């Protein structure tokens, strides 16, 4: 056995790498399974019944809840909104992070850079509900600071959160404000760790500043960027609190994502727990498939 395949035990003995991996990963994986399996099985069982919060009885209904989804206009809308939300927030956060980090890397040095990093981290420290409420007020057509410049020049205020065409993007701005700025700090710190010589070589070859980063530094950071994309994609699936606080899925159903619709159906006024569970199962299946495919692809992109 190669010593590279051995790990030190507290007693000083070396363990085979496989056994070490099993010992290290076993307990957290077991905990993960214990914590995730019961709710998943519970959701599955509920999805095949007709449990409602409005009455105590329930019965087995087979695939009726899933069949209903085929004709549910609101569900189709929720799927479309969820997909749009994923694309806008993930792409937005990463683009903002890349642009901002390169800008700071190239133009600000020393202590000022540290202060800016600290400021950029602050939005992510704000609870989502607080961020949502603050921005909801800022977007207010009558009192909000966002509309103030328009009013100064005599233009009518924009109803950011009340117009179906702008509401989702207005909420996405808040999400990007929190995550994009945080990712910018991570990107900046990663840029600082890159070896200087490839960048200097590119500059000697008269590459522009953006060229240096586009062709040299960002390709070097590709694995980190892909990880960031994944983290944000998973996080964007859980934006319930932000959307709920800012628009509650409205106006109408313009910002109603699948998790929000499931909540409104199951816990909200309708109390149709089983139908909501069926939606959760659908979300689980769709996200598992999508992330598996993306994961496979990403390994190719990282290579």
């Amino acid at each position: 056995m190669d010593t590279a395949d051995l790990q030190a035990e507290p007693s000083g003995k070396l363990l085979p790498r496989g056994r070490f991996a099993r010992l290290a990963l076993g307990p957290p994986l077991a905990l993960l399974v214990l914590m995730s399996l019961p709710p998943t099985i519970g959701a599955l069982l509920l999805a095949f019944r007709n449990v409602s919060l409005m009455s105590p009885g329930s019965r087995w209904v087979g695939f009726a809840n899933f069949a209903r989804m085929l004709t549910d206009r609101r569900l189709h809308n929720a799927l479309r909104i969820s997909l749009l939300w994923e694309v806008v927030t993930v792409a937005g956060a990463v683009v903002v992070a890349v642009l901002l980090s390169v800008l700071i890397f190239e133009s600000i040095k020393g202590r000022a850079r540290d202060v800016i990093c600290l400021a950029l981290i602050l939005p992510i420290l704000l609870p989502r509900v607080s961020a949502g409420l603050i921005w909801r007020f800022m977007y207010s057509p009558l009192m909000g600071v966002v509309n103030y410049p328009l009013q100064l020049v005599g233009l009518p205020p924009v109803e950011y959160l009340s117009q179906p065409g702008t509401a989702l993007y207005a909420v996405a701005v808040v999400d990007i404000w929190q995550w994009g700025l945080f990712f910018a700090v991570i990107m900046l710190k990663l840029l600082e760790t890159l070896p200087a010589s490839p960048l200097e070589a590119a500059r000697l070859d008269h590459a522009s500043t953006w060229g240096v980063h586009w062709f040299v530094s960002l390709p070097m950071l590709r694995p980190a960027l892909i990880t960031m994309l994944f983290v944000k994609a998973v996080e964007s699936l859980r934006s319930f609190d932000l959307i709920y606080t800012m628009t509650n899925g409205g106006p109408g159903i313009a910002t109603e994502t699948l998790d929000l619709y499931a909540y409104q159906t199951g816990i909200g006024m309708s109390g149709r727990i089983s139908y909501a569970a069926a939606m959760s199962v659908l979300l689980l299946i769709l996200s598992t498939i999508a992330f598996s495919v993306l994961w496979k692809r990403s390994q190719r992109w990282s290579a």
Partner: protein
Amino acid sequence: MKLRTIGRQVSIAALALAAFATGARAAENECVGKVPVIRVIAQPILTIPFLDKNKGEFEKKWSTKVDIQQFGENERRAKSRLDASQGAGAYQVYYIDEANVAEYATNKWVLPLLDLMPKDWDWNDFLEGRRAVATYKDVAYFAPFEGGGDVMMYRKDLLAAKGLQPPKNLDELKKVVAALNDPPNVYGWSARGRRGSGMNVWRWTPFFRAMGGQWFDGDKPAFNSDIGVKATQYYLDLFKFAPPGSGTNTWSEVIEGFRGGQVGLIVESDVFGPWAEDKTKSRIAGKVGYAPPPEPLPSAGFAHGFAISSKGNPTDCSKTVSADFVAWSTSKDMEARKVKAGILSDFARKSTLDNPDFKAQVNPDYIKALLDTAPKTDLLIWKSPLWPEVGDDLGLQLEEVFTGSQTDIKQALDDAADQASEAIKRAAGQ
């Protein structure tokens, strides 16, 4: 012999009654310190922080901690329904209202109230309208501490400046709000647009009922009739004179817009009258006129109050302490103390209307408007356990209409009616 037997029976009955009465008192004494905590779910209207501030005296009486948890209206409804329907029993006292009393009573999630209240609590002192809303199938289920109907509130100064009279009917209403509309300084009108059986549907309903609308024709939803379309169109037309973003207004934004001086006229729940007169928060205190809603608008009666959870109170002591909390928080004395503290919007008792402190603090025009509106105040929603779901589905469709994502009103109401039919079918099949 016969007389002696009757006499013996009477004596036994009297003894039994005395023993029962003594037992009840003993049980109360025995309960001190036996219930470590009672949890109360509530929404933050003015009464609740007042109770929270004064709960120490109740806690001292029973050696019990009172944990009042406050949520927004929709969250409060969702949370308490989840707790009740799943039998979790995390809350001993529920805050319930007109929209869910039928559902809670039908499912036996709350206990009949009067069996548990002390005699001197005086149920008959509550205003008739409040008692009617708190009662389902002749049984009272919650103790109201707030309620009322609708009232029209308008800026006297703005109307006077334009030489206008308060509108008396729906035609005049449209004309007056159009004349008042002078954006961005002031908007003629504001109303609830945000989805919800207690939000936009609540405010839309008087318009629907005023035009002769009925919720159901037999088992078939009828709110998608021509009358429903006409009422929705009228309500939508009024939004042309409302501040930007009103299509998703909650009642809170309507009131803040009005007392912030940005809106000229509203028809809202009468509890908000004193809000407009609160000099610390209102820019228009002293400038507001009150009148009944323009004819033929009826007034949407409502009441909010505390009910005793059946699952949350598994022991007699828990029931006793929870019931006493409800009695304490809705007592005559508590209403008088709220009035003294300047809380004039949350009352439910007749005795409060006669309270000299109340009379001294409340605008007489407001009291007159309340009395004039009383005869046309009624519960206008569909009194059914299915109402929260049906009302919410309708609210979503209305919000789509008010914000422009649905331009076909008939289609929107048809969709809501289909959902209502499906809910009825589902409930029947369960």
